[in-house]
């Protein structure tokens, strides 16, 4: 970790005594503190990195790094930590690849302010969420969509889906895996659904 320790100075690298997390605590922390930031993180990465095909890798790297650091010491402020890590990753990439992105790496503190504001009425969220997920289902290829609806909405097992659709179980697996990815992306995209423009 020597090469990276100074990247996290102030959070994970500080001298404060933070709690070491076990695997299930880490998973909980990641799900409740980090993943809800995904929409803002993606926005940050897309805004500050020219090559959009790198975004998935960058996001993964941010997640891996914050989790490794958090395992050793739980950060006090997950949001600040995630964005500082993202910024450092971008800076290191720029240095290593000798490329300069068009826009300089933005001020981390300016981001995500809106996330602290109280959320709108829960029922509104629920309705929007449903609408957004429906829109994602609509964009899936026909057979994939059918498999996902039978599995997620109707609660059928893979085997039942295969016999219902008259296709092989391995094909069902592929449809389900693709559908799960699309739904999860949409779920975390939180209203800023970038695939809509593609």
């Amino acid at each position, binding site marked *: 970790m020597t090469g990276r320790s100074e990247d996290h100075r102030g959070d994970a690298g500080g001298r404060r005594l933070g709690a070491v997390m076990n695997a299930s605590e880490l998973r909980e922390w990641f799900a409740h503190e980090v993943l809800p930031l995904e929409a803002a993180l993606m926005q940050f990465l897309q805004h500050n990195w020219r090559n959009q095909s790198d975004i998935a890798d960058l996001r993964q*790297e941010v997640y891996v790094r914050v989790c490794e650091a958090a395992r050793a010491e739980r950060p006090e402020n997950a949001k600040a930590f995630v964005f500082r890590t993202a910024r450092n990753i971008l800076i290191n990439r720029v240095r290593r690849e000798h490329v300069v992105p068009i826009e300089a790496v933005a001020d981390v503190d300016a981001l995500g302010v809106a996330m602290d504001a109280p959320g709108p009425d*829960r029922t509104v969220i629920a309705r929007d969420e449903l609408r957004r997920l429906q829109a994602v289902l609509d964009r899936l290829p026909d057979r994939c969509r059918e498999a996902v609806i039978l599995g997620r909405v109707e609660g059928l097992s893979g085997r039942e889906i295969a016999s219902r659709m008259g296709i092989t179980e391995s094909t069902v697996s592929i449809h389900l895996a693709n559908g799960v990815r699309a*739904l999860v992306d949409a779920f975390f995209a939180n209203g800023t659904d970038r695939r809509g423009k593609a």
Partner: protein
Amino acid sequence: MSAVGEEGALPLGDANEIEAEAADWFQRRRFWHWSEEDQIRLDAWLDQSMAHSVAYWRLDAGFEGTERLTALRHPHFGTPNPAPKRNWRPILFRTAAAALVVSAIGAFALRYETPPPVEKAYATGIGRTERIALSDGSSIELNTNTKLRVSIGRKQRRVFLDRGEAYFQVAHDAQRPFVVMVGKRRITDLGTKFLVRRGAEQVEIAVSQGRVRLEATNESHAFAPVELIKGEVVVANDKQIVVKTKTPKKLADELGWRHGVLVFDHTSLSDAAREFNRYNEGKLIIEDPQVAQLTIDGTFRSNNVGLFARAAKDLLGLRIEVRGADTVIAR
């Protein structure tokens, strides 16, 4: 963790591949037969690198989050007919329209249903719990000092929770809604496990699986029906209803009584005493307001007030005083 490397960067281009692999593991675990061996293999894969773990955790958490999609399934219907080759949306709309008609007919038929289903009453005393298995495959666990009545009819299954707390595990039956009545409130199961606790002034409902719908049945306190999904807790009194989300651990803690335990997590002594007093004739008394505010963690047998009092004494440096059947905790 070698995946990160000394350079501080992951190899480019592998996030997509790892996510595809994670998605395959996830769908196998979620939709297919899953054995101990499968779990061991998955665990080994997750342990290989943090990148594997985060990809899998992310899919798992995100997919849980799409639970909302089950709202598209109409409760009055089971699975749709095996013909969804066309666009699925018109099918859902038609299903919904048909459901409205069916439920209207259902309500009409209900009124003339003969003979009325037999109502059975169940009750538990203080400190007792009881599990009842219903003829339809559902089960109800009654917590301490609880009274309820059950009627399983051909068209509807009804439970009146007159007092206390119960945990419901409902065998879903699209033809027979499972309804829990709590005073003027109606809770309709939409395929689920849930907890209902009736207090003096408020009702608390916690959903540990599936969905339920909460409605008012009287005009004066009317509020819009609320649909609750897994992990949500609603507290309703005469004036308002509040929906909160609880972590799976918190929900599990609240259900500790099913195993005869109370789970405290930064719980104040006054709240802990109130909990113990639901289960025991001999009461736990805390008169000192400052002592009442001290907090305690731990899992205790709900019938062992003595052990709890000793823990409070040892951990918090307090004094125990026995007053007849009651126990007083003081400074």
